[in-house]
């Protein structure tokens, strides 16, 4: 697992890393899914396209997580995995396309834990060290 949970008094801090920014974002998304449910029990039959943009990589990460939460609520899904399919740097900033994998939420099948309300800018960090990309933020639960 390339993510960890950080001690935060009221909420949950997540830190995720990968060889690329794309991988770090995907790990961060998995970390967020792992707050809400046991990922081993969530199937991957549904694929939901995710599209977002932001001025810089850290904000893109938060945007991406919030877009996934929106899709969770309106499609009534639980997600288990996320892949970034395209990440481009434009004059306006960064643009991301990806796919979230999951299935319809089923209280009889899934172990439902704590709902993440939002990804926040609190404790937000993006750093590259020795070729590793690391992202950190706090999830409001």
């Amino acid at each position, binding site marked *: 697992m390339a993510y960890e949970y950080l001690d935060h008094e009221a909420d*949950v801090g997540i830190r995720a890393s990968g060889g690329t920014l794309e991988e770090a974002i995907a790990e961060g998304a998995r970390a967020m899914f792992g707050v809400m449910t046991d990922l081993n029990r969530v199937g991957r039959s549904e694929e939901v396209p995710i599209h977002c943009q932001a001025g810089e990589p850290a904000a893109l990460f938060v945007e991406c997580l919030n877009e996934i939460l929106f899709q969770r*609520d309106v499609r009534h899904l639980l997600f288990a995995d996320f892949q970034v399919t395209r990440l481009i740097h434009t004059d306006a900033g960064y643009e991301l396309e990806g796919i979230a994998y999951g299935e319809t939420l089923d209280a009889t099948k899934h*172990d*439902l*834990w*704590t709902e993440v*309300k939002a990804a926040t*800018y*609190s404790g937000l960090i993006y750093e590259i060290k020795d070729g590793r990309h690391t992202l950190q933020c706090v999830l*409001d639960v």
Partner: protein
Amino acid sequence: MGKIIQVTDDLRIVQTEPYVWEIPPYGEMRVPGRIYGDRTTVDHLVEDVQAGKSWNALVQIVNVACLPGIQRASLAMADVHPGYGFPIGGVGAFDFDEGVISMAGVGYDINCGVRTMRTNLSRHEIEPKKEDLANALYRTVPAGLGSTGDIKLSVKEVDKVLEKGAEFAVERGYGFPEDLEYVEERGRIAGADPDAVSKKAKEREFNQVGTLGSGNHYLEVQWVEEIYAPDVADAYGLFPDQILISIHCGSRGLGHQIGTDYLQVLEAASRKYNIPIRERELVCAPITSPEGRRYLAAVNCGINCAFANRQAIAHLARLAFQDALGVRPQDIATLYEIGHNTAKVEEHEVDGQIKKLVVHRKGATRAFGPGRQEVPAAYRDVGQPVLVGGTMGTCSFILHGTKRAMETTFGSALHGAGRTLSRQQAKKRFWGGDVITELAQRGIVVRAHSKAGVAEEAPGAYKDVEEVVDIMHNAGIIRKVARLRPLICIKG
């Protein structure tokens, strides 16, 4: 003069009263910081700064004191802990014409709050049927991650929820018009403009009205264990051993999306109006700017959404009581309902002048003292009820607002216990099943949609609510009216 704690070269904390500590202004602070707490409260805040934590409440109190138009002081109640931009337990009041409105002062769960209802039942009448009642409540009140309510709405109807708040729920048959009298703003705050709320936020609301959510949200059946102020308890309709119902929840996905949407709007506004961003979440706009007005209109929508939500749940709880005990819904009356994540336009006296302000309460309740028109006539002589939720299995309090609160905290007080262990620490230390068994041994029935959630919310993960309440009581901001013990706890 009390104790002085030198935290950094600039940051000093001076004890000014037994339970009041001030941070004298330095750097860009426009007003002092003021913390309601004992030595332990303050030491805890100082340790976080000295440990160099990425999130700490003391720096957040200082940052809020730097914002344009702030009045009197940047305040922190005794349940203070790190938040986003504002501390939790933070209160910031801003001049309407010269000040700012900040997303950080409201948060993601807009108008999260507590509704308490009173029954005519005594504890001994419930005891034998406790399990049945718990099952009925668990069945009737949708809770937990991804739960949906029975109220399905069209886009147009979502707009009605945002405009009309609890009135909408009453019109749909959830509860009685009499309930509205005992909800802040009569369950419908003015100035809510659905056009200020994104389509995405509304889409998240379609099936979430009348759902409890998860995390620290709960529905409890409680009994009045101790009465401290008999005259006030009388005004509030309380008697010893009386059974009460308390509901803690907020504005669900709609409020969360408004927060997410406006974080970006207000970040741009902070740059546009040259307001330094001291913490990434501490973004704001001048109240009278187009961005500020729009955000306030959206917050009002979120406030109404939470009113509607709690009104619906309150009625579902009545139906469960009817189902399990044969109690008629009209025999369960609303005692009061308050929010603790809000920004509201209010008038307060500052330096001898009545001023129009926007008061942010982030994890803090309104606590108006005697005489305010906003308080229901039946309670106006004693001040508004302040409902403070404890944690699962500990106790909750009913307090009342005071004249001193009006003079010093813009009529505001604490909202809960405040955590001492993170959710991760709590999950490592406690197992949900054990917590439920232990509470059962103490006569408390827990019905939870998530065992892990129970571990995260274990009583041991929180500060002692009684200590926190006593600090505010001794500081004279609120006075204790009654202490409540839970009998049944329904968790998301």
